């Protein structure tokens, strides 16, 4: 299988301060604007990024501040691939963490983070090791719009 080459990519490292949530999703949204997404497609990706970054802040680095690595790549066929990585506490049971409404974040958390990421993107993959960290990768295809000339 030939691996497609990204036509553009970005990398961002931010500390897990909650004030960076808005910056993280806006940065990825600005990058993906090259794919000419609809408002809805852009909102989907922004929401998925917001959930992934919030998980790093609320769960991975619960009582500490650590780095969050965000990487995004876009491809000629209109796909955007995004990775959000932390080196926090890790997830002991990924299947349980992905269940809707499951949360260890307290009564003000909805437990919908992974359900939203899954629903708002086309592919979601979660890799985690306790004590080492978690990497979430997501992919979404942005519909190509045809140009009418003349």
């Amino acid at each position: 299988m030939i691996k497609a080459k990204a036509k553009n990519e970005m990398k961002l490292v931010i500390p897990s301060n909650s004030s960076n949530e808005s910056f993280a999703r806006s940065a990825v949204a600005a990058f993906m604007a090259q794919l000419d997404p609809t408002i809805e497609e852009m909102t989907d990706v922004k929401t998925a990024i917001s959930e992934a970054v919030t998980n790093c802040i609320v769960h991975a680095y619960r009582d500490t501040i650590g780095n969050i690595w965000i990487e995004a790549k876009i491809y000629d066929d209109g796909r955007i691939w995004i990775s959000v990585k932390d080196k926090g506490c890790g997830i002991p049971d990924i299947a349980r963490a992905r269940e809707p409404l499951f949360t260890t974040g307290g009564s003000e958390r909805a437990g919908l983070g992974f359900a939203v990421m899954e629903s708002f993107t086309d592919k979601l993959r979660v890799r985690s090791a306790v004590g080492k960290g978690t990497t979430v990768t997501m992919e979404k295809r942005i519909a190509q719009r045809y140009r009418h000339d003349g």
Partner: protein
Amino acid sequence: MSVVFEKKDDALVALLSGEIDHHTATEFRESIDCEFEMLRPALLVLDFGGIGFMDSSGIGLIMGRYRKAAECGCRIRVVNAPPMIERMMKLAGLGRLDVF
């Protein structure tokens, strides 16, 4: 973010504006709870007309206010949610709570 409050008869209307994420949800929550505690209305209306972005922290915000209101015998209504935010609310199954 900002919350503007209007008192209409026995209802407290909270007009929310800005973006709701984990960071801003804390500020929204504190602002709403403070006004709610002071007025103890029979109906709390959360107006999402001015919200441009919301992740699942907004669902936590609604569910938290729903529980708090229910403890005091207060009803809660969610109104004017833009379509993209309504989609998040549907995904969370908020329809089952009778808040619309």
